[in-house]
């Protein structure tokens, strides 16, 4: 029974969302606002149960009880190790600074957590982007030429490998900003644009199947699962 109610609820909401394709209407507005509310609620629950509780609350409370064993003189190496949990007070305190936003005089305090998070992201990004993207992509462009040297590629594959190098270089030239695109540069950057357009076309065409699959599945749900409960 509860399952059938579930199917009906899901089917109703599915149709509400699809009604948007016609135009804005009360059913879509109903689903849209409910969706926003439910998803925010879900986000809060996940932030609690997968963020704050396991990462901050559990280590901190363990550290507190460990602290108690130290005070009462029953400390073991294990409980002393658990004292490290006290470190979590720092991020919690930093996080609490966000609430400074609520007091106009202390608003500037939220710059602290924000600066930390931004510094964090920037620091992680530099070596990772360099290695995973710049190094790896440059290497990926060069490496196939070893196979040309070894003579294991067909003429057609060699053509493809060379085409990739031309494509990469011309696309990079399109992204030159501090140079006026004139003469040879302009010509090469046009080749770069051509590569970009071909790449975009290919990616667009290749995505159609996946998007259709989503819709076919949704229609399948409506026709089989939902109408199936009626007929």
């Amino acid at each position, binding site marked *: 029974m509860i399952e059938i109610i579930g199917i009906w609820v899901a089917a109703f909401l599915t149709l509400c969302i699809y009604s948007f394709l016609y135009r804005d209407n009360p059913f879509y507005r*109903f689903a849209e606002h409910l969706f926003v509310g439910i*998803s*925010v609620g879900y986000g809060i629950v996940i932030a609690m149960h997968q963020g704050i509780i396991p990462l*901050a609350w559990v280590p901190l409370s363990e550290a507190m009880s460990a602290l108690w064993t130290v005070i009462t003189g029953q400390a073991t190496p294990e409980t002393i190790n658990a004292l490290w949990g006290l470190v979590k007070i720092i991020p919690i305190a930093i996080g609490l600074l966000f609430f400074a936003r609520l007091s106009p005089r202390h608003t500037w305090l939220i710059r602290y957590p924000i600066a930390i998070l931004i510094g964090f992201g920037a620091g992680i990004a530099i070596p990772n982007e360099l290695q995973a993207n710049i190094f790896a992509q440059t290497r990926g462009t060069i490496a196939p030429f070893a196979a040309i040297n070894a003579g294991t590629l067909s003429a057609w594959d060699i053509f493809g490998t060379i085409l990739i190098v031309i494509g990469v270089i011309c696309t990079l030239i399109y992204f030159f900003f501090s140079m006026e695109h004139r003469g040879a540069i302009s010509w090469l950057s046009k080749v770069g644009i051509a590569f970009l357009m071909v790449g975009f076309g290919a990616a667009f*065409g290749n995505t159609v199947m996946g998007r259709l699959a989503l819709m076919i599945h949704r229609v399948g749900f409506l026709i089989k699962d939902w109408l199936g409960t009626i007929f």
Partner: protein
Amino acid sequence: MKRQVPLALCFLFGIVMILTQFVPHKYVQALYKEFIDWGLIISPFALVLAVITLIQTHTTRVRRRTEHWQYSFLVFAGMIIMVCVGVPFGEQDSVFVWLYDNVQVPMDATMFSLLAFFIASAAFRAFRARSFEATLLLVTAMIVMLGNIPIGDLVWNKVMSWTPWADGASGARQWILDVLNSAARRGIILGVSLGVISQSIRIILGIERSYLGGGD
């Protein structure tokens, strides 16, 4: 206090995060794991603040009776139900899972599936051979789409069998993706990465500080 300390913190955390990538020593790696946890602990506090602004937005709408104000109650209802069930009983609770499976997931999936319609209307409108570039976009998209369906191969082998791709449209599609698409993607990725790195350097060195806002 108001500007220098945040900039110093940003610099400090940035540099430490860079160094953790180059120092394999266990103390540094432990610090890295600790900092990652810190990030995950700090962010949820901002969520509380954001939810407060969400509630403010919708109470204002209700109070001022702006158009469609009634729907704001739905936002509250959805949020309160999820929080009341999920916070005390956890995300494994059967009622919470039921709500997730039968309310949130279907709407997620349906919104996602709207793309099937939108991708078609966007293709119809945008894929016109107005210029050389637009023609390239159009032609490759068509070939790749043909290559994704079995009929495409049949048609291709009848009409286009003189092309170098032996196994029909799917062969052409594969070649386009492997060669032309990956060349363009590489160019984009290389450019983007340079942009990301230079912006990150500016942030860490405190040259880029627009995120601090104005004032002193």
